[in-house]
């Protein structure tokens, strides 16, 4: 089976490197942010013609430094921004369709590097160079109350990501580790530390079940981690009745420089990675072999992933900083990417039998 990525459209407008892109929960809007301290919102001109897009909004003026990361609330009404100016911005769409900065969250000592909304929309997490992860509760009227400041990472926290359904948070750090955070009776604590990468972990993403996690690192590998619950049938030892995350697969040799981003499609399960070697790669899980299925051990064997498609020079000579799959069935084959060339691109992932 052959597969490939073809470009649908390139979106130009940013005047500096683009650090991140984020599809709104319904996929109707693509947001991008970067070194020019703005957020841009992009939509296709018509549903019939996905090769023509316009920039409908430029959100600017609230951050004094680079906007590193953006995240939509699950209802798509709010957008949050993490900036090197140490602030997290909350933007809300009003009735006329305009976006207004309705709150700025202060607390981090310096660069805020990522922000993420929980699936329920009631929690927000931020992280930054001050090595901390903050959990915020979203109360009514755009009031955000800090519930917890988690300081167990020993270096910058590069990224955070909520579990797709549970109130469980994963964080990736310059200290080469990933940490899993859970809540017990209003107390947030680190329930597991995932060690194995040899350098900075830049990005993480869950699969749709939340039982697997993929991580991307400066060590040029992708690692897949699986959650094992207490008394699991595989006999993986768990501590203090906490689930234990174990690395079940490492993909190396596919990127020649740091991997900055990874996205796991919640629709079709393919994994895309973007790297400082200018390439985007797409991986797919192998079908379990017939013999293992016959032996009735499918599902308990360790997964393996194969490269199915690549684009070299996805952003010309520039690093690929972020990739993200379209969130819903409608255009699940679309992948957005952000590059150091200041351009956002949308690709179509084509699989041919």
């Amino acid at each position, binding site marked *: 089976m052959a597969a490939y990525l073809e470009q649908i459209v390139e979106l130009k407008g940013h005047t500096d490197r683009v650090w991140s892109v984020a599809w709104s929960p319904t996929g109707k809007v693509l947001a991008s942010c970067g*070194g020019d301290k703005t957020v841009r919102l992009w939509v296709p001109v018509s549903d019939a013609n996905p090769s023509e897009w316009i920039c409908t909004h430029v959100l600017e003026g609230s951050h004094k430094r*680079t906007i590193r990361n953006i995240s939509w609330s699950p209802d798509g009404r709010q957008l949050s921004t993490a900036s*090197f100016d140490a602030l997290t911005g909350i933007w809300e769409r009003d009735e006329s369709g305009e976006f207004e900065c309705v709150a700025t969250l202060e607390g981090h000592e310096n*660069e805020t590097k990522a922000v993420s909304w929980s699936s329920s929309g009631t929690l927000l997490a931020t992280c930054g160079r001050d090595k901390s992860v903050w959990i915020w509760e979203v109360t009514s009227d755009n009031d955000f109350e800090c519930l917890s400041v988690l300081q167990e990472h020993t270096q910058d926290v590069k990224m955070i990501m909520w579990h797709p359904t549970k109130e469980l948070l994963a964080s990736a750090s310059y200290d080469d580790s990933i940490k899993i955070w859970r809540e017990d009776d209003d107390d947030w604590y680190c329930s597991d530390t995932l060690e194995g990468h040899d*350098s900075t972990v830049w990005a993480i993403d869950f699969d749709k079940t939340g039982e697997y996690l993929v991580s991307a690192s*400066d060590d040029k590998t992708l690692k897949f981690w699986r959650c094992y619950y207490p008394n699991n049938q595989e006999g993986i030892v768990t501590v203090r009745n906490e689930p234990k995350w174990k690395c079940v697969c490492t993909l190396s040799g596919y990127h020649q420089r740091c991997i900055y981003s990874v996205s796991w499609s919640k629709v079709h399960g393919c994994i895309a990675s973007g790297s400082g070697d200018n390439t985007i790669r797409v991986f797919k899980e192998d079908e379990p072999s017939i013999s293992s299925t016959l032996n009735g051990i499918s599902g308990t064997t360790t997964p393996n992933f194969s490269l199915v498609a690549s684009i070299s020079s996805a952003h010309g000579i520039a690093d690929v900083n972020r990739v993200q799959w379209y969130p819903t069935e409608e255009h699940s084959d679309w992948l957005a990417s952000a590059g150091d060339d200041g351009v956002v691109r949308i690709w179509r992932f084509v699989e041919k039998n």
Partner: protein
Amino acid sequence: MSEQVLTSKLINANPTIYTPSKTSHRVLTEQDEKEDIEDLIDAQEVFDLIRSVTDPEHPLTLEELNVTQLEHVTVNDKDNRVSIEFTPTIPHCSMATLIGLCIRVRLLRSLPERFKVDIMVRKGTHQSEQAVNKQLNDKERVAAALENTHLLEVVNQCLSTAGFRGEPIIR
């Protein structure tokens, strides 16, 4: 990266000064003079770009302090790779990160964008070699550092002599 810049005390008060070797200057060949032949970027060119950067704490160039040397510059033009090893004057030099940052910024501004640049402390020449290397090659940290106006001023000051490319500097 910024805190080190603010210390006023000299880290290495009496550095050894090296005389730049004359032979390290490029001798123009007939090929170089031809306009229709595209000059490849080579180690000599990259060394010329960084050799006259001023050290953050002495009115001396990185070449005069033997921090940078031609032999420690590796260039692969075809693969768009540049790798630079530099040697801090003393193993506990707290200026190492700043020196590396100056080299990075100089190359960001003067090399064609297609090049991917790795900057490392030469093996065994600094006590926190790994930490310095990691920081210098983390582009997010570099980007954040360059948004710090005070730090950027210091870097620009060090780079103000870079254009001399090994020629005597009139200060």
